[in-house]
Structures are given as C-alpha cells and as structure tokens.
C-alpha cells in the first residue's frame, strides 16, 4: 500500500519537474498562434474596401502606399504604377459634399449606387468605403486585399496601428528604439559595473564589502515602477535642462534608468566569475612580481572573461526586456530615432501601452503578440548564448 502511495508521489514530483518546460512550451504556443494570425489579416481595415474606377490599372497597394495616399503624400497615380493622373481621395464622410440627404435615402440605401456613380465619373478617385456599400454588378474595381506580409512588418518603417484605411505595423521603429536604449544603457553601466565588481572581489576590505553588497541587493530589489517614477521626476527634467530640449522624455533618460537597473545583474555575475579564479593563480602572479592591479587585468580578468561576458549579456537581456521604467521615461514616439536625445519607444513599452486599447483578436492585437514573439526570441537567444558561454568554460 505504501509503495503504491510512494509511486504516486514520485509521479507527481516528476510531473512538477516538467512545469517549467511545459510553461515555456505553452508560452510559445499561445504567443505564436496569436501572433501569426497577423499574417492572415488583411491589409485594409476589416469590413472596408478600397474601390477604384474600372479604368484604373492599379491592382494592389502596399500598406505604406495606402497610408501615404490617404495622407496626401502620394498625389499622383503614376507614383504607384498607374496612369499619370491626380489622386482624388474619398472617404465615407465626404459623401455629403457631393450628394444631399435625400439623394442618399433615409438609411443610406442609395449611398452604394451614388458612390459607384461618383467613382465612375472621377477616374482618379480612390474610395474607402464599408464593403456593404459595394453592390453586385457595380462598375467598381476593388483593390486586391492581400494579407499583411512579413516584409511589411519586419522592414516597415512606420508603426501606426490606428491609421485608416490601412494600419501600419512596421517594427523597425520599435526594434531600433529598443536597440538604441539598451546598448546605450550597457555603455553607461559597463564601466560602473566592472569597476564595482573588480573592487568587490579583489580590492575591498570586509567592511566595505559589507556595505556594498547590501547596496547592490537593494538596488536590484527596487521595483521598476519606482525607477520609472524616479526617472520621471528627477532624470527627465534634468536632461531637459542640461541639453536644452523641448521635452526631457528621451532615449537618454531611458538608458540612464536602464543602466541603474542592469547594474546589479552585471555586478553579481561578474563578481561571482572573478571570485572563482583560483587563489593559486593570483598568488603565482604576485610571486612573479606583478602588482595587484597587474594581476587583475592580466590574470584574473582573462580567466573569468566568459563569466564577465555572461554578466554583460544578461545585463543586456535585462535592459531589453524592461517595460515599466522605460515606458515612463522615454516618451511616446514610435519613430525611428536619429539621436539618443529624442523620444522613442521600445518593444516592451509598446506592448504595455497599447494592449489595453487593441480589440481582442484584431490585427493590432495580433501585431502586439508578434512583438511579444520577437521579444521572446531575443531573450531566448540571449539566455541560450549565456548558457553556451558558461558551458564552454567548463
């Protein structure tokens, strides 16, 4: 009887051992399924069509072309492969400029025919109308509504998910924003992190170590909202004043905050790695006449270089994935940054900021999940490389 009970418990324990693996699998499944639904979504907003005159040879338009047409940045059909004629934009609300209320009927029943007439009369017109207004047999030539393509998303230079008629889901501004902020953060954090860890592991006496270690632990324990709050109240105005900018919410503010947050990670891992350098090697170097500093940079650091690299890479991973602090201090501009002194947006901040407003199941929602997938893959690569680095060491 007892043996049976023990078998059950052993089985339970075995199952729980796989909890983490199952969780990762589930994360992959749920995220990927939702995210790749984006590529089955249409370019043009759901329930709408783009109608052209029958004579217009243009058959497809990319999302950015659609946006530029409706923003009136592309004004001639020849720019998108059509004839040389000016583009006339028509949206449903424009209909009252052409027809009166009676012409359209009480519940807009006649609107569909009227719009078809209008498009026929104006060869350069492009109409963005709900699909229910397109009747059978009308002489409208509809733009082929292709699915959002991989290229549109990865190489797209505009992130504008609420644009009509075609929402823009270009990841480039977010990817570059994330990279800029994180790399700058590591640039700032690296000298501090390395100095503190060298100091802690080689130079500091026990009294100093007893002060520094709790300080590092505390720094790593402060929640990221508090860092964001501090950045918002102190760092952002400071940057605004020092660099004489219109707003202080910049990539630099984000980098500074991220640097402080990544410091404990870098310090703990690097110090651990340097501590593992065997005493005999250090003593041999000192016996040969090297000073303590020479020993550090000629013996200890090269020995623990893989640990130091792991620490830095983990710090980068932490910086890339940080959400709240960055969201609060880098401003709200999802554009490709040209300098670090501009507002920008990172991937996690975008997800956090926009998920609440994206209707579940819509293209925006799926695009945000795709961003989550990209983030997941980046952190997976970082974690796996750290594993590879430490495995190589052994």
């Amino acid at each position, binding site marked *: 009887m007892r043996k049976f009970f023990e078998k059950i418990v052993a089985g339970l324990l075995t199952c729980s*051992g796989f909890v983490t693996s199952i969780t990762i699998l589930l994360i992959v499944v749920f995220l990927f399924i939702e995210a790749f639904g984006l590529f089955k979504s249409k370019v043009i907003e759901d329930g709408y069509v783009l109608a052209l005159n029958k004579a217009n040879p243009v058959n497809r338009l990319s999302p950015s072309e659609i946006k530029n047409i409706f923003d009136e940045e592309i004004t001639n059909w020849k720019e998108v492969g059509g004839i040389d004629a000016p583009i006339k934009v028509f949206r449903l609300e424009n209909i009252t400029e052409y027809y009166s209320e009676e012409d359209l009927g009480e519940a807009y029943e006649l609107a569909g025919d009227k719009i078809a007439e209008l498009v026929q009369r104006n060869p350069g017109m492009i109409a963005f109308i709900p699909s229910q207004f397109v009747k059978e047999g009308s002489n409208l030539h509809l733009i082929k509504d292709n699915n959002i393509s991989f290229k549109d998303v990865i190489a797209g230079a505009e992130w504008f998910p609420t644009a009509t008629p075609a929402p823009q889901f270009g990841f480039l501004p977010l990817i570059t924003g994330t990279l800029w902020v994180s790399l700058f953060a590591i640039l700032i954090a690296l000298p501090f992190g390395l100095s503190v860890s060298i100091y802690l592991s080689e130079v500091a006496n026990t009294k100093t170590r007893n002060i520094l270690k709790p300080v590092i632990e505390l720094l790593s324990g402060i929640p990221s909202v508090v860092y964001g709050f501090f950045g918002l109240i102190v760092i952002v105005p400071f940057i605004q004043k020092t660099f004489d900018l219109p707003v202080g919410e910049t990539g630099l503010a984000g980098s500074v905050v991220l640097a402080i947050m990544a410091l404990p990670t870098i310090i703990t891992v690097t110090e651990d790695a340097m501590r593992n350098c065997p005493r005999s090697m250090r003593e041999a170097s000192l016996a040969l006449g090297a000073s303590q500093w020479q020993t550090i940079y000629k013996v200890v650091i090269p020995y623990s270089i893989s640990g130091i690299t792991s620490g830095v890479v983990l710090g980068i991973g932490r910086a890339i994935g940080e959400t709240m602090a960055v969201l609060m201090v880098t401003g709200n501009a999802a554009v490709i940054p040209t300098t670090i002194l501009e507002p920008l947006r990172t991937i996690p901040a975008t997800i956090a900021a926009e998920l609440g407003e994206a209707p579940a199941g819509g293209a925006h929602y799926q695009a945000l999940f795709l961003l989550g997938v990209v983030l997941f893959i980046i952190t997976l690569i970082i974690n796996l490389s750290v594993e590879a680095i430490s495995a190589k060491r052994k």
Partner: protein
Amino acid sequence: MTEMNKSAQITSSASNRKRTSQYVAFGLFRLLSLCVVLILFAILGFIIYKGVGVINWEFISSAPREGMTAGGIWPAIVGTFYLMVGSALFAFPIGVMSGIYMNEYAPKGKLVRFIRVMTNNLSGIPSIVFGLFGMALFVNYLGFGDSILAGSLTLGLLCVPIVIRTTEEALKAIPDTLREGSRALGATKLQTIWHVILPMAMPNVITGLILALGRVSGETAPILFTCAAYFLPQLPQSVLDQCMALPYHLYVISTSGTDMEAQLPIAYGTALVLILIVLAVNLLANALRKYFEKKVKMH
C-alpha cells in the same frame, strides 16, 4: 657599478609605474563604487524625503477619494497582499516539488540539464511576455477574466523559477550522509525526504520564497492585463474580482493624472510604501538566513 645603478633605476621606475597605475586604477574603482552607493542613497533618500510627509495611518488605511486626488491607498495595499498570497500559494508547492524532483529523483545527466536550461530561460523572460501569456491563457483561453486568480497565476509563474533554484540549492547543501543514514535505518526515499531532508532545507526555501514575493510585490507588467484596475469602488470579494495594486497605482497616478499637483504626493507615498515593502522583505530574509545559519552551526 654604474650598470647596477642603471638596472636599479630601471627597476624602481618600473615599480613606480606599476604603483601609480595601480593607484589610478583602484582609485577609479573606488570612485565609481562610491557613485553607485550614492545613486542608491539618492533614489531612496529622495523618495523617503518626499514621501514621508504623506504617510500616515489615514493614508495607509483609507480608500482613494475625489478621483485619486485625495485619500489613501488601502485598496491597493490589500490588492498587492492578495496577489502575493495567491502567487505564493501557486508557486510554492510547484516550485518545491520541482526542486525536489530535480535534486532527489531525476536521473543525473541530460534530463536534468535540459530542465535546468528551461528553468533558466523561464527566469530570463521579460515580465511583459509573462503578462501577454497570462492574458492569453488565463484571462482569455481559460476564461478567468481580469481577476485576482489570473494575476496570481501569472505572478506565480514568475516566481516558480526562483523557488526552484532556491530549493535545489537548499537541498544540495544537505550532505548525502544524512540521506544515506536515513535509508540505512530503513526509511523509504519519500520518508527520508519528508521527515529528514525537507525540514532541514525549509529555512532556506522559505527565505527564497520571501525574496521572490518581495519581487512580485513590485511587478507591474504581468498584472497590467490580467488583473489590475485603477479604481474599484469596493474591495475585491472573490478571486474572480479585479483588484488594485500598488505598482500599478503608482504607474497610473504618475503618468495619467488629471490633477498632477494633488496627485504627486500620493505618488510619493505609494512609491515609499513600495520601497518599504522591499526593504522589509530584504531585512526579513536576511535575518531569517542568519538565524537559521546560527541554528545549523549550533548543531
């Protein structure tokens, strides 16, 4: 004679160079380390200074009023507490069982390494991805909706890798002789674990859990879409209700307020309460660790 002098001069200038470069380097390290300490004190000091005037019994125990421009943060404190308890209830059993499996039952080799890689990866995933996953799985797919349940489960997932790692280390620290002695006396593997090993490892495991909970109390991203609400008229009545939470409260109050002047003190107060929780958790964990170290030494 002159040659000896020459070589003596060369040696002493070389050692001078060594000495100065060491002074410069170490001085630089000391300076930068001091900067790091100052940064911490600047952050803590700033928030404590600005927040201490706001904290009083009324602030902690009353609900927000007048659209968040007055009143206290009691519901947020309650909500954070519920979330901490919920995630502990979920993460503790699973994490400890998983750690026991990894250390006591699993065949050493590829399997253990694989699971360890998975656990490390899980702990490295950004918290917003957890939030997305929690929303997709608990809120939408399993239909729990925005609730304390969904939030606790998501936060629990965040804690599980930490608990697993602490359990494993705690178990590893127990020498095998104890296990062998217990088996030699006729106990089964399970009895050994339950009566001998686990009680010895518990102190360290609990310390790890406390640290994990401290981290959870400050996490915002996982609860953004799974549970947190900005304002609720009453305290949550069941696990399927939404709750307010301190970090989310701080986030909203400092970024989207209508009356920043009045809301800023509340924001400082919230930040201070959060920091106090973190400080308390760290102190508690450290004190527990020292207490149990002493107990073990005495034996």
